[in-house]
């Protein structure tokens, strides 16, 4: 049974800074490093009300972990790792864990911007959102129009967005403005099961269900003029925010390797407080195989968001005209494991429900954004808008260069469904002038704004904690829900 607990009363919780809590290493005999949580008293109260803190302490027990196990201000209970968790493990003697990446490998967000002022959309938002909902298969399992052969899938796994560049579905600008240029090195199709291929074959270019969405938004407020100018954001400009991941493919990769690693624990002499943390030494055969499959799924997810952008551009051109051309601001993952160098040491950084947030001087920050910081996107709940931030150099010391990924749920799906019917949620959103398309009223109720934390508050804490800096806030004009 998991040692996770929702009772933090007995713990010696330190609160050394206004936006930072720490559970010291000595709190539990098996912890190797402290557990550190970013949040103010309000968020701490929410985070400590479920099993997130216990889960973070479990992460702190894993072999080869360095510095600390971190939780972002939007953290909530997950499987094994909490959602909003960040942890780094030495590649030499540390582990890699599928549970530290999550089932939806490289779930992430991309933002596109048009120079067209949103006010010129008047009366055309509804047909535009309708066309987007028609063009982008949404809802659980809706099939893609871009089915792939095995050979093509292999190229997606290995080349990522580079493959789409060749196919005319991406531009060089798109690739340059995607984290890791839309291609995580180390992908190995041989490590991907037949089952994963079968689940992923027909899902490229589809949004999926749950909290995934495509939103037409408008820049409502600018907090940092210089950074906004560098990102091409101006008050009143129309934007498109895409949130999805690697669909059934990523889920099957995670399932396959949780099973494989669960069975290899004894061989590697690893004892875990929670089976869902199943892991293997990064350098072992199982560890390298998972990394190869996980990188394949990450590249699949970047291609998925790129194909959706390609289709969305066509929809914008057909409904609005060539003046509505969409330029990619950035695409960033929030469920991924990457090999990075921190303090001169190679580590495998797991970010699960956490966004990389490299600062202005980091060499992996895209050239166009050097001096500004890598863009970070934090969507709020449906209809409440989203934030654009940029990473801070200090985040490297504070969280391995990471920030949060969303508002974070406060209510279960069932509780949200019981609170209001999807039909009423839709009515509320429409009353605010937001056009909504969703294949399921049940899903709409589950994703209602009241089921999430207050994104304004979460973002404020991220900024005060020095992880990322606010650039702009966007309001919602229309939403296509998965």
């Amino acid at each position: 049974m998991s040692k996770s607990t929702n009772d933090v009363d007995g713990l010696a919780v330190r609160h050394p800074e206004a936006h930072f809590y720490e559970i010291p290493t000595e709190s539990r005999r098996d912890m190797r490093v402290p557990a550190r949580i970013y949040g103010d008293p309000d968020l701490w109260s929410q985070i400590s009300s479920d099993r997130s803190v216990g889960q973070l302490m479990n992460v702190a027990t894993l072999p080869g972990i360095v510095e600390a196990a971190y939780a972002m201000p939007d953290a909530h209970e997950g499987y094994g790792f909490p959602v909003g968790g960040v942890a780094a493990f030495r590649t030499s003697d540390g582990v890699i864990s599928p549970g530290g990446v999550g089932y939806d490998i490289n779930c992430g967000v991309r933002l596109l911007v048009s120079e067209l002022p949103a006010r010129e959309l008047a009366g055309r938002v509804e047909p535009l959102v309708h066309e987007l909902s028609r063009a982008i298969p949404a809802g659980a399992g809706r099939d893609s129009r871009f089915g792939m052969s095995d050979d093509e899938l292999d190229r997606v796994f290995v080349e990522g967005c580079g493959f789409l560049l060749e196919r005319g579905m991406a531009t060089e600008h798109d690739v340059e403005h995607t984290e890791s240029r839309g291609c995580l090195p180390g992908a190995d199709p041989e490590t991907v099961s037949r089952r994963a291929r079968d689940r992923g074959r027909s899902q490229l270019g589809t949004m999926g269900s749950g909290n995934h969405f495509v939103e037409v938004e408008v820049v409502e407020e600018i907090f940092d003029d210089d950074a906004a100018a560098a990102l091409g954001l101006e008050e009143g400009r129309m934007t498109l925010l895409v949130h999805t991941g690697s669909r059934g493919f990523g889920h099957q990769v995670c399932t396959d390797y949780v099973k494989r690693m669960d069975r290899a624990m004894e061989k590697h002499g690893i004892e875990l407080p929670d089976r869902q943390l199943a892991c293997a030494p990064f350098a072992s055969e199982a560890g390298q195989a998972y990394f190869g499959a996980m990188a394949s799924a990450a590249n699949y997810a970047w291609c998925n968001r790129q194909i959706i952008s390609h289709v969305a551009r066509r929809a914008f051109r057909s409904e609005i005209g060539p003046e509505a051309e969409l330029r990619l601001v950035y695409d960033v993952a929030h469920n991924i494991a990457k090999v990075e160098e921190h303090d001169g040491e190679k580590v495998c950084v797991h970010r699960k429900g956490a966004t990389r947030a490299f600062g202005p001087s980091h060499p992996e920050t895209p050239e166009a954004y050097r001096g500004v910081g890598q863009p970070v996107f934090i969507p709020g709940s449906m209809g409440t808008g989203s934030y654009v931030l940029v990473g801070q150099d200090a985040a490297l010391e504070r969280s391995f260069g990471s920030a949060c990924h969303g508002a974070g749920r406060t209510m279960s799906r069932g509780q949200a469904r019981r609170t209001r019917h999807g039909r009423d949620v839709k009515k509320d959103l429409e009353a605010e002038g937001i056009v909504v398309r969703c294949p399921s009223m049940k899903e709409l109720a589950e994703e209602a704004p009241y089921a999430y934390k207050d994104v304004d508050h979460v973002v404020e804490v991220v900024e005060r904690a020095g992880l990322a800096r606010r650039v702009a806030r966007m309001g919602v004009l229309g939403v296509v829900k998965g």
Partner: protein
Amino acid sequence: MDHTAETTLRLRAPTFAGLVREATRGFLSLVPDASRGALLPGERTFEIDAGDRTAALVEWINEMVFRSEAEGWLPVEVSVQEHEGGHVEVRYRAQRLLEPFVLVKAATFHGADIRETADGLVVDLTLDI
């Protein structure tokens, strides 16, 4: 049962074989119109060598997740035999679904631990949806 963003099945049965049948029934209860599809000919077998009962149960649900999403059918009329060494054999008929079932993405080990009670076995199985 509700979890923050998932569904948890609480399964109770006097025996492990009963738990596998309950897991099948619980999964089917999530599938709309599960009983309306045609039965496919023949009996099928799924062999599990998971090392322990909890892992075997998780593997069985993941088998149903894959079959229902990728192949559009689900097991019915399930019978289970547990052999020495933890080997589990599940025999069943396959029932075609009206459309692929994709709501459940995976079964997890989250909080999954089969417990013995005075009334038999109990386990909570969390499904990622």
